């Protein structure tokens, strides 16, 4: 139990520190790198509470795809981040004030709200006990049976989105020289090299 607690505080501290660095780092590439660190440590937190599926998805989807995409965008777009951050100190007092008011409001709501037992029961009903079924397997149980219709529909929507993106953006530019391996291999020595016998004293 102590080990688990220590691990939690370690991961949590790293996650908060990395998240702070994401918004405060001067170099945008560093920001993205810290973002990846945040995702990783958060995935660790998910593993600690037994939600290994979420942990995997976080690493595979967010680190593997989203963060890399961010990296591309940051490197490809010519945005002057230093300029964007100008005036940060000027806005900070108001920003902090708004943040504190929001926090107090949230605490007031969360402190007084109570959930009726039926609602709590309705929320936990479909989740089998962790000891009996791992949550990846439990998710698979419903996704491929009860929700198969929606799952397949989501697949069709993604297919449509992909077709749409390709239709609207892919252009075949004329006059582009592409490497044709077959053409290269089919080229014979006679087509490319010509031997000339040069008579002495005459030149070609």
């Amino acid at each position, binding site marked *: 139990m102590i080990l688990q607690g220590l691990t939690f505080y370690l991961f949590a501290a790293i996650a908060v520190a990395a998240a702070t660095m994401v918004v405060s780092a001067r170099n945008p590439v560093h920001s993205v790198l810290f973002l990846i660190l945040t995702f990783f440590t958060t995935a660790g937190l998910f593993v600690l509470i037994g939600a290994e599926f979420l942990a995997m998805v976080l690493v595979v989807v967010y680190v593997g795809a989203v963060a890399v995409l961010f990296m591309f965008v940051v490197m490809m777009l010519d945005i002057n981040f230093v300029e964007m951050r100008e005036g940060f100190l000027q806005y900070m007092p108001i920003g902090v004030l708004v943040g504190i008011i929001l926090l107090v409001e949230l605490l007031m709501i969360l402190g007084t709200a109570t959930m009726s037992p039926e609602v709590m029961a*309705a929320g936990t009903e479909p989740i089998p006990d962790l000891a009996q079924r791992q949550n990846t397997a439990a998710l698979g149980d419903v996704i491929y*049976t*009860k*929700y*198969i*219709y*929606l799952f*397949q*529909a*989501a697949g*069709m*929507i993604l*297919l*449509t*989105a992909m*077709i*749409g993106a*390709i*239709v*609207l953006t892919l252009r075949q530019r004329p006059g582009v020289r592409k490497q044709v391996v077959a053409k290269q291999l089919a080229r014979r020595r006679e087509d490319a090299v010509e031997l000339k016998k040069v008579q002495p004293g005459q030149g070609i």
Partner: protein
Amino acid sequence: MANPHDYATAAPEIFLALAAMALLMLGVFRGNRSTRSLCWLAVASFAIALLLVFQAPAERSVSFAGMYVADSFTAFVKAMVLIASGAGLIMSMGYIRDEGMARFEYPVLFMLATLGMMMMVSANDLIALYMGIELQSLALYVIAAFQRDSLRSTEAGLKYFVLGALSSGMLLYGCSLIYGFTGATGFDAIAVALKGQEHAGIGLIVGIVFLCAGLAFKVSAVPFHMWTPDVYEGAPTPVTAFFAVAPKIAALALFMRALIVPFLAISADWQQIIIVISIASMLLGAFAAIWQDNIKRLMAYSSIGHVGYALIGLAAGSTEGVRGVLVYLAIYLAMNVGTFACILCMRRKTGMVEGVSDLAGLSKSNPMMALALAIFMFSMAGIPPLGGFFGKFYVFIAAMNAELYALAVIGVLASVVGAFYYLRIIKVMYFDEPGEPFEGPMSVEMRAIIGLCSIVVVFFAFYTAPFVASAEVAAAALVP
């Protein structure tokens, strides 16, 4: 839990999804040369899906853990949606070839949009509803911007996308409130939770209002209609023809199911919302179209007006009302497909023309097309004995029997005002000085579509009884 029976009930959707993916593969391997054959294959898939829809048993069957429903109502609406999509695709073929947008994704996106519409029609759960709407909308956004080198087309696509995303947000917010206050997402489960209640709590009403706002966006009812004229004008014409019919039918069917099945017990609470947006749509459709000279914009306002009339039936909330909406939509389908087929034939050497004044003297240069367009315009104005009259007749009867007299009276007055701009088109065609004639002979497909639609509209009076009877059966499946 998803047993073989579940898959059998959803056979049309599953077939269409598989066919769309197969055609996508074919297109990827064959390239854009195969667009025309892919279009015909897609039309064939719609036909097969239509057969599958009719083969399903007529009694109500709920599957996929209550998320999917198939009954005679869904069969009726899906048949209309599939016919509208097929007609839309056939009308597109010549246009996409001539305008250099014949890429193989076009028919595939049509199929995916149609799949989304069928899922909307069959949705029996708030999540399934959202999934269907998103699949349909996402495909439509792309089709609207398909002519990607045209500024107007891309602008239309972007506008549609931004406003559509906004409406999806409102819809989702409404869904979450409804879930929070009833504890269920399934339509049947919500109906059980509300059983015996006279009035809904304020939280649930806010949820229903947001749900209505999101759905009103999709059917382009006032006050959520702003995107319609711009998108209709900017999108390529065959795409506009598609937008004006199939998505409207699917969204109206979904609108009816999403209000009537779960919230029938508290119908007094949502009825007022529908009455207000119905009146506003009819009036705006009647007055705003008067000043339009672009025929696509005019059709956009006309479709806003038609949605207003259809919503009268929903406001009535009875079997009779739903029957009226179904009859209205079927005739709307024939009139609009026919009109847009005529608009697609408005081509001069310089390209497509879209002005009402360009139709001047059409009766001399192309009497058959002028006659067909005149029939459609008379029908839209609601002149007996054409089909459009019967569509309006059945929704007004439903409104009278539900004691919504004011709604019916305003509807009749709005249709009198609306008749002005429909008749103006006929006047321009028959009495104005002829301009330059349109180019070339019309293609066989276009002639067939215009001919079929005119026959349906003209001779509707002769088969009204059996048709209304089948609409009655479909409506009875929705309203207990």
